[in-house]
C-alpha cells in the first residue's frame, strides 16, 4: 500500500552542480558528434545523447529519483504509451 505522508527530499547544491556540468558536457558532445559523419548512426547517436540528458533532468531536477512508486510507474506508463503510439503508427508508414 502506498503511504500517505509527504516525504520531501532536498537535493544539495553540489549534486545539482554536478548534474548541470554533466548536462553541459553532453551538450558539448552533441555538438562534437554532429561534426563526425557516422552515416546511419547519426540520428541514433543524437537521440541517445538527448535521451540521456532528458533522463538526468527528470531524475534529479524533477526529483523522479526520490519519488514513490506511483509517480515512477505513472511516468513509465506515459512514456511507454507514447512509444506504442509512435511505434504502431510506423507499421503503417514503414510497410505502405
Amino acid at each position, binding site marked *: *500500500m*502506498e503511504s*500517505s505522508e509527504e516525504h520531501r527530499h532536498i537535493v544539495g547544491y553540489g549534486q545539482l552542480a554536478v548534474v548541470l556540468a554533466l548536462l553541459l558536457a553532453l551538450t558539448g558532445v552533441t555538438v562534437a558528434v554532429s561534426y563526425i559523419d557516422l552515416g546511419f548512426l547519426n540520428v541514433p547517436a543524437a537521440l541517445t545523447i538527448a535521451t540521456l540528458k532528458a533522463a538526468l533532468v527528470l531524475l534529479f531536477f524533477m526529483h523522479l529519483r526520490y519519488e514513490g512508486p*506511483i509517480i515512477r510507474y*505513472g511516468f513509465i*506508463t*506515459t512514456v511507454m*504509451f507514447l512509444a*506504442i*503510439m509512435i511505434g*504502431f*503508427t510506423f*507499421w*503503417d*508508414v*514503414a*510497410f*505502405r
Partner: protein
Amino acid sequence: MTTAQSYLEHSSPPGRRGWKAWLLTHDHKRLGLMYLWAILFWFVLAVLLGLLMRTELMGAGRTIMGAETYSSMFTLHGVIMIFFFGIPAIPAIFGNFFLPIQLGADDVFFPRLNLLSWYLFMFGGGFAIFSLFFGDGFPDTGWTFYVPFSISSAGNVSLTVTAAFILGMSSMLTGLNFVTTFHRLRHKGMGLMKIPLFTWSLYATAWVQILATPVIAITFVLVVLERLLAIGLFEPDRGGDPLLYQHLFWMYSHPAVYIIILPAMGVISEIIPVFSRKAIFGYKGIVYSSLAIAIAGSLVWAHHMYTSGMSDVSVFVFSLLTFLVAVPSAVKVFSWVSTMYRGSIAMSPPFFLSLCFIYLFTVGGLTGLVLGAAGTDIHVHDTHFVVAHFHFVMLGGTGFAFFAALHYWWPKMFGVLYRNRPAYVGAVAAAVGFVFHFVPMLILGMQGMPRRYYDYLPQYETGNFLAGFGAYLLVFGLLLMLLNLVLSLRGRRTAPANPWGGTTLEWTVPSPPPVENFTATPEIKDFPYDFSEIVANSKK
C-alpha cells in the same frame, strides 16, 4: 448519524449562500449536480437533433431539410453526443458524486481543480454555441473533422475544434483528480480488492483520459494551424499525409469510446448484484478486465482505417488486436449474467435498464466484430451498419447505463423517491423504440446505404420509414424517464438511506449525504458485495 446537515442545505466551504454556494463550491457532490444539469441540457438538445435527422430520412428526397443542413445536423449531433454527453456524463456526474464516497473520503483530492474542470466544461460549451452563430456557418465535417475537408470546409471548424480542445482539458483534470483521490484519499482499511467496481472502472478510465486526451488536443491545434497558416502537415499537395491525421484522431478517439463505455460497465457492475441480492460473480475478473480494456482498447485505433489506404501489415495487426478487446468485454457480460443466476431477483427500474444494457451492449459488441474483421468491414464500412453498431454501444450501452445510474442513485443524490410506473413505461418504450430504430439501420447498412446522406435510393425507403417510428418511440421513452425524475423533486417522497439494499459505502450514509460524506469513520467490509447482512435483515 442523521443529525448532520445534508450537502444541499450546507455549503462547502461553509458560510456561502445563494448562487455563491453553488458557483464557488468545492463540494464534489454539488459539482456532480452542476454537471448533471449541464449535461442533460446537451443530451436533450442532441437527441432532438437526432430526431430531426430521422424525420428527414423518413421519406425519400427532401423532407424537412436539405443536404447542407443535414451535414451540419449530424456534425452537431455527433460532437455534442461524444464530447458533451458520452465522455463526461458518467464520470463527471456520478463519478464526482460517488467516487469519493465509495472510497470512504470526504472529497476529491483537488476540490478547487474540480471546480475549474466544471468551468472549463461550461466554457467549452459556451464556445461551441458561439462557434455556431459567429463566423462562416455551421461546421459540416462530421464529428471526426477528417482532413482535407476540414481544412477546406467553409464552416466554422476552427472554433468548434477549439471548443473540443477546452472540453479535453476539463476531462483530463477530472481524470487526474480521480487517479489522485484513488491513491491518496482511499480509506486506510480499503485494500485494492475491497474497492467497489464502479470506482475501479473510473480509475481505469481516468488513466485513459489523462494519457490519450493530449493527443487529440495537439491534433486539433494542428488542424487550426493548417486552416490558418497552411503548414502542410496533412495536405498531400504540400507534402503532408492525410492518413497521419486519421492516426492521430483515432489514437484518442478510439480510447475515447472506452472512456464512454467503461464507466457504464462500472454502473452495471454495481446494480446487478444489488438487485440479485448476490455477490458479484468474478469480482477480480471484472477489475482486471476493466484494466485490460483500458490498455488493449488504446492499441486498436487504426481499425477505423481499414479502407483508408493504410498498409496491409497495419490492417492485419490492428484487426488482430481488435479481436483481443472482445475477450475482456465478454468476461464482464458473463460475470453479470452469472451474478443473476440463482440470485433472488428484485425488479426495479435501474435493474430493468441494466438488463436492457446487457442485451443492447452485447449486440453492439457482436456487430463490432463484423467491423473488426478487415474482410467484412470493407463491405459495411461507412454505411448505416456502422452507425447502428455504435449507437448500440453508445446509446444502448452507455445511454441505458446512464439512465440506470440516474434511477439507481437519484434517491441518494436528492433524497427523494420517484414513481416506478412512468419509469418502467419510459424504459420499455425506449428499449422497444431503440430496437425499431437501429435494427433497420443494421439491415440498410448491409444492403449498402451509406451514412451521412440526407437522401437515398428508393429501395431503402421502407427501412428508413420504419426506423423513424422507432426513433419517436425511443425519444418519447427517454424524455418520459427524465420528466418523471425531475417531477419527483416536487413530490418529496423522502428516500431512506438505503432504499435498494446496497452494500457499498454510499448506502451507509443518509440520503442526501452530509457535506463531508461521513459523520463517523466508515466501516470497510472485507468484500464490497457481501449481502449476507441485507439478506438476513430482509428475512426478519
